[in-house]
């Protein structure tokens, strides 16, 4: 991993370490999973995979892709813990909404 140092944005004097990050690898992962997702409705029906299982796979793969974008492209993986936790707050709201919708 190549390293470089530079002054932090905002004019602060702190010096941060930049690592060569796996942006292209993440892109390849996102592209491949998207390609697989697109095949699911046709392939799933042809192979007799239940609609419920297809939905489960598509939602889990979407969640993994979203996590990859958040962790690597939005740099959450490299941020302080408090910033990592910030987007988790509304996720509790998302879960509550999903539960309410499913119950009805």
């Amino acid at each position, binding site marked *: 991993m190549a390293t470089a140092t*530079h002054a932090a*944005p*905002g004019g602060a004097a702190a010096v941060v370490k930049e690592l060569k990050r796996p942006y292209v690898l993440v892109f390849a992962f996102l592209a491949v999973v998207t390609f697989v997702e*697109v095949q699911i*409705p046709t392939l799933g029906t042809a192979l007799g995979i239940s609609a419920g299982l297809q939905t489960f796979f598509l939602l889990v793969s979407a969640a993994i892709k979203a996590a990859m974008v958040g962790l690597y492209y939005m740099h959450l993986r490299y941020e302080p813990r408090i910033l990592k936790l*910030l987007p988790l*707050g509304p*996720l509790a*709201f998302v879960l509550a909404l*999903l539960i309410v919708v499913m119950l009805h």
Partner: protein
Amino acid sequence: MEGHATEHHGGEPREEHHSSIWPFVVALAGGFAFSGLGLFRSEPLYGVVLIALGIAFLVAGIAGWILQDLQGVSFEIRGRFEEPPFAGISRRKLGMWLFIVSEIFFFSGLIAGGLALRAHGEHWPDPSSPEFPLNIPLTAVNTFILITSSLTMVEALHAAQQGKVAQMRAFLAATLALGVFFVSIQLIEYWKLFNEEFLTPWPNLVRPELATFGTAFYAQTGFHGAHVTGGLLGLGYLNAMAWKGRYGKDNHEAIELVGLYWHFVDIVWIFLFPLMYLIGR
């Protein structure tokens, strides 16, 4: 509005303001206008009044904001927090993350509304059926375009951090171009869906059974498209400033902030694409 004297400028204490009433007025405008839209069909008079109030607040809010800016009031916030719990975190970055958190709430409500329509609507088209109105291959290409734009966006930031200005400009231009492609393809798809598939957000005589699906589809993809368009404005600004030599190794926070928003819009699409195009009921 609050303010406090923080430094001397030409012998006079300079007021440094970090807040303004006008963004709140613009937010109220949104509240009135959307409430009016919601009421329009059942209570047209109240609906029109609320929409008119919304437009009036929007005009007043934007005018007041511009006027305040012209008077030289500074909204500039820079630097990092020094006290816990956000010690070391850029103030502007935290602001963008809080905005993104509010956007998560917004899209969660919108998507949950779509799921409720899916559960309660009489008809919901099956993606594996030939009757399915949406163009899955075209939108798969569009999804690929948006994912690629996230890569070019993060590469633009990386290039800026390393002081590679030419690369940064190229990646920013590529991100803008990919975003324009995405919106253009979505508009072409909308046109075809309206005119060839008769998928409308309201009931129509040709395919009335698609009304519920159409409402959910246009509401969710439309708001997403509006967010992408907003991101394009930010990207246009970044591109212009990059060509003026504004950004480089020591000044690239604006690229990071617009990038955060752009990646968030990408994440929303990562969920909307399977929900609207690939998952039946």
